[in-house]
Structures are given as structure tokens and as C-alpha cells.
């Protein structure tokens, strides 16, 4: 165990710091959350800057046009970006983290050369069509149907939780090509051009009041067979390949952001006098220790990925602990705010006259409910951890004989 950086890692960090310091001040002001066109312009501009500097696709293999950085360099990249206040991956999320790596691993040469360069450069934005209104945790029950018609698939059905579908160029789409009962053996992975006729995008208003997500309604959308990635009915496996790209750095930005937020809350508690309450102090101490532990766990996972090529179990259990700690912190913020937690209008502190920052904390509290649901509910995570790591038996399927 030696947590010292190698000379190469230190050089990587130093170069990145210089680049971030020179580049971030040139960025335009962040666009309004509700202005999708402006958000697209902002995020793709940032991706273009990364691309120009050789940081695009930091975790992608060099053959695919990426940086081919080691797991430790990926960790450094995310750490430095967060500490410098760089923009998040934003609308590039699906293309860079999901669709692109899948196409690289499973796509044809033609597909790789058509789609990958424009994901890296930021020119193309992708969205994800996996979940359906009737298929959330049980994704393999999906019913969006694709029927072969010559050299096309004709697709009908609906998808939900499709982020930024309003401004996406392409969608990584999972469709049912097998029988209704075929479950994960009858799913196919398709590239859908979002300008195809028959696609309706409806914004989905969440409990935060935002329309971060959308629903997709597909009515006889024609998708060329050449847009299929992998074999017909092999889409489940193709999708799982994507997931194995995870190298334990998936939540680095969120974790460091949470640690920053906790320092803010500590400051807030001191301003309001709540810090004098030992119960409040201990909750702060508990959260700080938990986030520290999760940061150590991240380093352990990344180090394992670096040494063995496999991230090990740290990444699997991380989300369980992180999502619960995030919710506890959000609850603490609301208690510290008291009445100021009941409105989004800026409230200033009675004594020091400075803003309490309540709007962000209230927003964060609402969004914290997402933590234990999105990307696999905590209940599904616990099934995965207990069955795949602890080796506990699966639950017998419904209707199975005892």
C-alpha cells in the first residue's frame, strides 16, 4: 500500500491543473436549467474543449479515439475537475459513458467510425431508451416491439426516464425482438436517429418541478438493420458489456461534491448556532467519516482496477452507502434551515445578513430521493450484492413449486 502518486501521475495532474486554470475562465455563463438548447450548446462546447486538449473519452481506449488513461489517471481527472469547478459531463453522459463504449466493444467497423468520433468531439448528443413505464427494476420484461420489415426494424412502444431526449441526435434503444416470454433472450440493441418520423418526446415533470427527463412514444419508427449493434436477440449481453466499463470512478464527482456540501453545512450550522448542539455536531462527524470512508473505498476500487483490470466489489457496494449518506445529509440541511427550508426564495441570515443558500439545499433535498432509485434501486443493489458477492440463493421465480 503506497498512496503516493507516481511521477507520471503527478505530471498528469500538474498538466491538467494548468489546463483547467487556463480554460475554465473562458467558459460562458452557465445556462438556465430549463433552456435545453442553451444547455446543449454549453455542454457540447465544453466537450469540444476537452477534445481539443486530448482529454475527451478519458477512459476510452486509444483505438477508439480516447485517452486510454489508467484507472488512477481517471480518478485524478475527475478529482481535479471537481475541485476546479469544471462543468460535469452533462448532456454527453449517455454517449460518453454508455452508448460509445458499447459501440466500441460490440459495433462494426462502420458503426465505430460513424458514431464514435462525434461523441468524443461533442457534436452528437445521445439519449438512452432502456426503461419503460412497465419495466423499471425488471428491465428484461420490456415490451417495446421491433418487427423486421426487409432491411428495417419497425419499432412501436414507449420509453421513460430518457434524459435530454429533447435535444438528442441519437438514442441507444433496447427493443423486444423475441417472443413476449423471451425476457433477456429476446432483446436487441439499436441505434435510433432521433430525427426519424414517428418519435414523440414528452417532457416528464419530476417532484423537483423540473423536466430533466422525458418519455418517448414510438409509433412505427423505421430503423435500418445496419443500426443494430450485436446480433438480434443478443442486446441484453451487449448492454451488460457497457456496464463492465465501470471502473469504480462513476461517483467521484458526486462524492467530492457531497464533501464540499458538508463543509458548507458545517459553516451554516456555525452561523445559525446549531453547531452548539452536540447531536448536530455528531451528525456532521458521522457524515464526514462516511464520505471519507467512501473516498477511501473509491481509491481501493480504482487501485484494484489498475492492478487487476477488474474493479472488484468496492464499486458494487459503494452506491448503497453513498446514496443513504447523501439522503441523511440532505435531511440535516433541511433541519438546519428550519423555516427557510420551506421556500426557494433566497433567505438571508438575520444576524450576518448573508444569504443562507436555502434554494440550493431545498433543491438538493428533493433530488436526494433520486439517489436510492436511479441506476438501480437500493433494493435491487442489495439483491445484486447478496447474490453475486455473498453467494446467497436467488428467490424462486413466481409460480415455482416449493
Amino acid at each position, binding site marked *: *500500500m*503506497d*498512496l*503516493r*502518486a*507516481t511521477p507520471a*501521475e503527478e505530471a498528469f495532474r500538474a498538466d491538467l491543473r494548468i489546463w483547467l486554470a487556463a480554460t475554465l475562465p473562458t467558459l460562458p455563463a452557465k445556462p438556465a436549467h430549463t433552456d435545453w438548447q442553451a444547455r446543449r450548446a454549453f455542454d457540447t462546447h465544453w466537450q469540444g474543449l476537452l477534445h481539443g486538449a486530448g482529454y475527451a473519452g478519458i477512459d476510452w481506449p486509444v483505438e477508439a479515439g480516447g485517452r486510454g488513461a489508467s484507472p*488512477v489517471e481517471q*480518478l485524478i481527472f475527475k478529482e481535479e475537475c471537481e*475541485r476546479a469547478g469544471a462543468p460535469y459531463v452533462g448532456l454527453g453522459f449517455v454517449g460518453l459513458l454508455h452508448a460509445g463504449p458499447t459501440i466500441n466493444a460490440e459495433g462494426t467497423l462502420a458503426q465505430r467510425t460513424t458514431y464514435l468520433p462525434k461523441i468524443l468531439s461533442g457534436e452528437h448528443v445521445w439519449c438512452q431508451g432502456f426503461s419503460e413505464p412497465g419495466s423499471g427494476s425488471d428491465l428484461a420484461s420490456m415490451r417495446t416491439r421491433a418487427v423486421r420489415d426487409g432491411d428495417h426494424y419497425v419499432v412501436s412502444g414507449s420509453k421513460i426516464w430518457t434524459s435530454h431526449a429533447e435535444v438528442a441526435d441519437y438514442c441507444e434503444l433496447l427493443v423486444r425482438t423475441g417472443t413476449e416470454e423471451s425476457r433477456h433472450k429476446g432483446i436487441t440493441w439499436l441505434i435510433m436517429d432521433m430525427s426519424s418520423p414517428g418519435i414523440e418526446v414528452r417532457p416528464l415533470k419530476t417532484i423537483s418541478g423540473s423536466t430533466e427527463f422525458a418519455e418517448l412514444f414510438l409509433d412505427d419508427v423505421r430503423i435500418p438493420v445496419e443500426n443494430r449493434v450485436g446480433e438480434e436477440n443478443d442486446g441484453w449481453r451487449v448492454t451488460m458489456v457497457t456496464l463492465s466499463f465501470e471502473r469504480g470512478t462513476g461517483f467521484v464527482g458526486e462524492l467530492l461534491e457531497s464533501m464540499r456540501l*458538508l*463543509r458548507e453545512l*458545517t*459553516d451554516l450550522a456555525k452561523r445559525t448556532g446549531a453547531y452548539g448542539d*452536540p447531536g448536530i*455536531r*455528531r451528525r*456532521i*462527524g*458521522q457524515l*464526514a*467519516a*462516511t464520505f*471519507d*470512508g*467512501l473516498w*477511501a*473505498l473509491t*481509491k*481501493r476500487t*480504482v*487501485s*484494484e482496477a*489498475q*492492478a487487476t483490470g477488474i474493479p472488484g*466489489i*468496492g464499486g458494487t*457496494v*459503494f452506491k*448503497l*452507502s453513498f446514496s443513504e449518506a447523501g439522503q441523511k445529509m440532505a435531511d440535516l440541511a433541511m433541519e438546519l434551515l428550519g423555516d427557510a427550508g420551506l421556500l426557494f426564495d433566497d433567505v438571508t441570515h438575520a444576524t450576518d445578513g448573508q444569504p443562507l443558500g436555502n434554494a440550493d439545499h431545498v433543491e438538493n433535498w428533493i433530488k436526494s430521493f433520486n439517489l436510492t432509485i436511479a441506476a438501480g434501486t437500493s*433494493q435491487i*443493489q*442489495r*439483491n445484486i*450484492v*447478496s*447474490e453475486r*458477492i*455473498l*453467494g*446467497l*440463493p*436467488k*428467490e*424462486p421465480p413466481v409460480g415455482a413449486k*416449493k
Partner: protein
Amino acid sequence: MNFQLSDDQVALRDGLQAIVDGYFSLDHVRAREDQPSVVDRTGWQALSDAGVFALLVPESLGGLGLSITDAVVAMEVLGHALVPGPLVGTMLAAGTIAGAAEGSTLVGIAATSDRGAIPGVIELPGDCDGYLVLPSSRDGAAPATYVSRANVVATPATRSLDPLHPVGRLEALLEPSAQELSGTADALRRNALLLTAAFEVGLAAFALELSVAYAKDRYQFGRPIGSFQAIKHLLADELARLEMARAQLHYAAVVTNAPDIAAIDGEVYGLSATQLEWRAVAGAKLLCDQVAVSATKTAVQVHGGMGYTWEVPVHLALKRARVHATMLATSDQMADIVASLTH
């Protein structure tokens, strides 16, 4: 950056595991239950011969000259086997107190109580030849001392919570006999917390393994109880706690051993190297306390009625977890330290 066990650490762990398998099987350990003296001198000598107590002693003084990180790895193995005896105190006293490294002098830890109304206890009064007295507050200036058993006025408990870790009621420490220890109390205390936390990680891993094995074997309603989500989710949560606690424990040991890393990491939080070490150590002890207590409680629950019997060993892990989460410092004190270093 490399956060993996080194080859030497793997060898240390596996070598120690072989000794533990030979001398500290569960049956062997359980034979000492509720005895005034719980230390098996043959096994203790085997640990000493393997260099366990001399791990932290510099090579120039005849020790192994290993780091606290290595010692933590070793202590996890001992915790997993519920090895009885004053392991932490003896390891820390070795090199200063004659006979500790050699296995002939057994040294416990006496932490002076912060809680004035409740008198303190000392561990293992029937086994220890003396005690390290560590101030409980985080005060680098206060010295750590060694007091021989003859100068500790204590009454062995008629019955202790943990049948494998008996305690005595502390009445007085005769200070004039105290011998000041080399090294600051601050550093000794951090090492004591880390080694105790490592023992807790071993306990938690042991309890989780027992629970998983039982959940696979025990059938109710025609299926293994481990196939019910109500059971498997409890166990998944314990594994999540365990992995996080162990990672923080190893991180804390690494920074304690490397002030340059502590200084670099501390800068991010506006902390000095020593402050960062304290934040890491206190956080590690807090998380290890919590997983030890939680995983052993869950083990009792998953074992159902059997978990409430003396025969099934989960209560031994449960009670030891309670001992180690209490005696040296409480979890609340650890949370207070971390909070005081969060700004």
C-alpha cells in the same frame, strides 16, 4: 497510487492465519470462556514466536520493524478468530516494556474515563502484568505511562459481559510507580485506536461469514432463508459497511505511517498533517465500531432463536464488539473528533 495489500502483507496475513488455525480454533478459544484467565500461554507464545508482538518494534531493537499498516492487517486476522488476550496493549508496549515482545509480559490498556460519574474498568485483570495508561482526550502533550499490575487497584468482576474478555473495576492507579513511555501519547493513542478498529473489522467479517453460511443452510418455508430478500438485504448492508470501514481503516493506517501523504491530503481540507491523521483515525474507528456492532447484531437476528443460544458463537463476537466499541473510546467521541476537524 497503490492501495492493494503488498505481497509481504499477503504473506504476513496468510502466515498468521496458519498459526491462528493451529492454536486458536473456535473450540480452543471457547474452552477459555468465563475463566479468570483467558489467555492460552501456548498460543500466546506461538504468536510471540511469529513476531506478532514485535511487529512495530524497530529492527535495531530486535523487532520486525514493520509499519502500523502491517500491524492492522495482522490484527484483522486475530479479530476474525476472536483471539482472547491483551493484543493491542502488548503490541504497543513491546520494545519499551521488558518481556512484551517475547510473550512473557502481557500488557493491557487502561483508558482514563471521560465520564466522571462512571468509574472506569480495566481489561483482563487475571492475565495482564501491567497497563498502558492513555489519556482519553486528544491532547498531544499528556504523557502515556505504564503501570504494573501491582500498582493497579482493581477488583475483578464476578461476571463480565464478554466471557472471553473479562474486566475488573478500576479503583485506583498508583501513579508514583508509573513509567513514562517513549513516543507521544498522541501517536500511541492513534495506533491503539487503529489496532482496535482492525480487530473490530475481523470480528465483523467473522460475524458476516457465519450469517451467510447459516442463511444458506437453514431452510424454512421450504427454501433457504438466505433466498428471502428480508434476510439478504440485511447481509448486503453489512457487507457495504464492512468494505467502507476496512478501506477507511487502511487509509488511516497509511497516512499515520506517511506524514507526507497526510500533509498533501490535509491541504485539501485545510488541516495539518497531524489533524488529517486524527480525522482519518477517528473516522476509521467510528466506522469500524459501527460495522462491528451492526454486523454482530445482524448475525444474532439472522440466526433467529439459535442466535440467542450460548452454543452458537455469534454472541461472542457481539459481546467483543461491544467491548472494543466502548473501552478505549466511544463512537460518540470519535464522531466529535471528526466533526471538530471538518471545516
